């Protein structure tokens, strides 16, 4: 008993090395919140935190979707447009006919699974297949709703407006989804299958597990999370716009990397993703609070990302 307890209390060097990236991002996140708070003390109030965090909720959820795919070693370059498409469906079909809308959303999750299955069976790189799919999502979104608009179902709008006292509302979905993804990807046997595929598909096959099943699970989970992200985004924007989330595609990848994930598959970092996503979301807040000249804003954003990652290298050196 004691021999298992001691290593759990004192994290091993290997474990520290693994969590270091997320820790560095967390430090950056806290630093940014501190900067914001010093410029604008209201940031630390419940309503201030709600304001600052709410925009990051859909991003964080989409990043969880990206993370599940990165866990099997794939990358999704279509997630941004997919989330956009979901907002469109939400703002149209889900309002006029909730049943049909719900079925369409389920169908979209299924189409993600099919995409994963095809990627696996045809042995094509996910990067390019999802890139192709992103054009399709965009086209479908424009087809359903050529111009941004529509309304959100009442229950969703109510969720978007929900303002509990004494608790920043956006934290709830962020933590809930992260816990869910943690249970799925890090604790369950489904998660083991997914990570095993990203880690060493041969071992998976030798053990008699079908890699196809693992990939299909991962894509289904990613599709479902994408739908969730789209619903939350629609609740915040009050309508559908297929191109509203196009920046998510690269941002989610950045969030996963900031959270300690890797491109090579095999690891799942749901809590890191929360930190990475919130950190990225905070950058715009910091930019608008500091009086950064218009032209320089994107450069500052780039430099902040690089600085966080540089900090990681430093910590990594120390830990080695």
């Amino acid at each position, binding site marked *: 008993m004691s021999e298992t307890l001691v290593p759990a209390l004192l994290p091993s060097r290997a474990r520290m090395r693994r969590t270091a990236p997320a820790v560095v991002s967390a430090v950056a996140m806290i630093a940014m919140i501190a900067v914001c708070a010093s410029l604008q003390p209201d940031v630390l109030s419940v309503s201030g935190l709600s304001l600052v965090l709410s925009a990051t909720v859909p991003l964080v959820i989409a990043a969880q979707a990206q993370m599940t795919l990165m866990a099997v070693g794939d990358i999704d370059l279509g997630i941004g447009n997919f989330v956009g498409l979901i907002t469109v469906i939400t703002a149209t079909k889900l309002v006029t006919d909730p049943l049909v809308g719900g079925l369409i959303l389920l169908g979209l999750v299924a189409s993600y699974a099919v995409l994963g299955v095809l990627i696996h069976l045809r042995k094509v790189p996910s990067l390019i297949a999802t890139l192709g799919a992103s054009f399709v999502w965009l086209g479908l979104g424009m087809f359903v709703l050529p111009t941004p608009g529509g309304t959100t179902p009442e229950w969703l709008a109510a969720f978007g407006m929900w303002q509990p006292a004494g608790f920043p509302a956006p934290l709830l979905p962020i933590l809930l989804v992260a816990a869910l993804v943690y249970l799925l990807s890090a604790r369950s046997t489904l998660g083991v299958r997914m990570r095993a595929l990203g880690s060493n598909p041969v071992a998976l096959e030798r053990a008699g597990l079908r890699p196809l099943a693992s990939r299909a699970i991962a894509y289904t989970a990613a599709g479902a999370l994408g739908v969730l992200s789209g619903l939350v985004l629609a609740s915040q924007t009050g309508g559908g716009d297929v191109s509203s989330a196009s*920046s998510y595609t690269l941002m989610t990848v950045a969030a996963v990397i900031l959270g300690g994930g890797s491109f090579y598959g095999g690891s799942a970092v749901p809590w890191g993703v929360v930190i990475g996503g919130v950190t990225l979301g905070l950058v715009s807040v910091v930019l608008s609070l500091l009086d950064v000249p218009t032209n320089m804003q994107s450069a500052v954003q780039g430099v902040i990302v690089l600085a966080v990652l540089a900090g990681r290298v430093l910590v990594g050196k120390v830990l080695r």
Partner: protein
Amino acid sequence: AGCGADDSGTSGTSDTAAAQTAGEKPFIALSNGFIGNGWRQTMIAKFEEAAGKAQADGLISKYKVVNAPGENSATEQVAQIKSLLLQKPDALLIDPASPTALKPVIQQACSAGVTVVVFDSAIDSECAYVLQNSFVDWATYAAKPLLEGIGGKGNVIVSRGVVGSQPEAEMLETTKKILGEYPGVKTVATVNGMCDGATAQKAVLGVLSSVPKVDGVVGCGDGYGVAQAFTTAGKPVPAVTFETNGRALNYWKDNKIDNGSVAVMSDPGQSVAALWQALDLLEKRDIPKQMTFPIVLVEQKDRDTWASILKPDEYAAWPWTRELFREQVKAVQTGGAPVQPPIPTAAG
């Protein structure tokens, strides 16, 4: 006429006094959804110029411009507006990336007691004031003179704008209606030019080999690229709808394309008008919720004047002063003819 700005500065002082007595001078924030093209840059430049001046004149305490980085992303803009709200501006001017996505956050701003002026785009919101150019005018000015110019018959290509945007739908409808009035005109192709010269150039080039002789290209201010496409294909440049920027106007001028081409674009000076609107609103003046301001149309007669003052990437903007703004408000309220601001001179 170019010194209008000075006049407005001095005339505004009495109002400022009122504002000062009422307490602090206002803090104006502008959130811009996208900064990646010349029009938006001109819009921001004009605003910063006017706001800087207003600050120097003591009309406002400070101003702040935030551009959503990256692509035309509504989500980024939502985040930025939320963080702007934390800084408690008195008025918030918004050039939205997407007209719908901002509705909830605008509602939030209003409930926080911020005066919101949305410009350059229609938005369906009870609490925000909207100032925009008429897209019907835009499409009409882009098509009518051109079709007249080619004598009401021949082949045309229609170059659509940012497909998927509200304005584009409106404009396409208008264009179709006008084309219907000219039975002699045949539409041989409809391309997606995205109101952007570079895109239009490639799109038109892609169809040029497959269509008969083209007499005109009805666009939304992408004529420079379209003209380039014809040059590449070794064909004479037909009548086109130019951008209102220096590059296109000078090209038009230098190549003596006198075939009914026009230049038309919405007015990047809207941001300045929106600034005056916000100040007037803060002074509790009566201003309609929805206002349409004139579009920028450069016909051949004014072309050389505009061409001489604009830098290549700078778009023609009406020089709204506070007076001119109030005149236009009056015109809107009374239903009178819109104000025609003077063409700025090089000195102004």
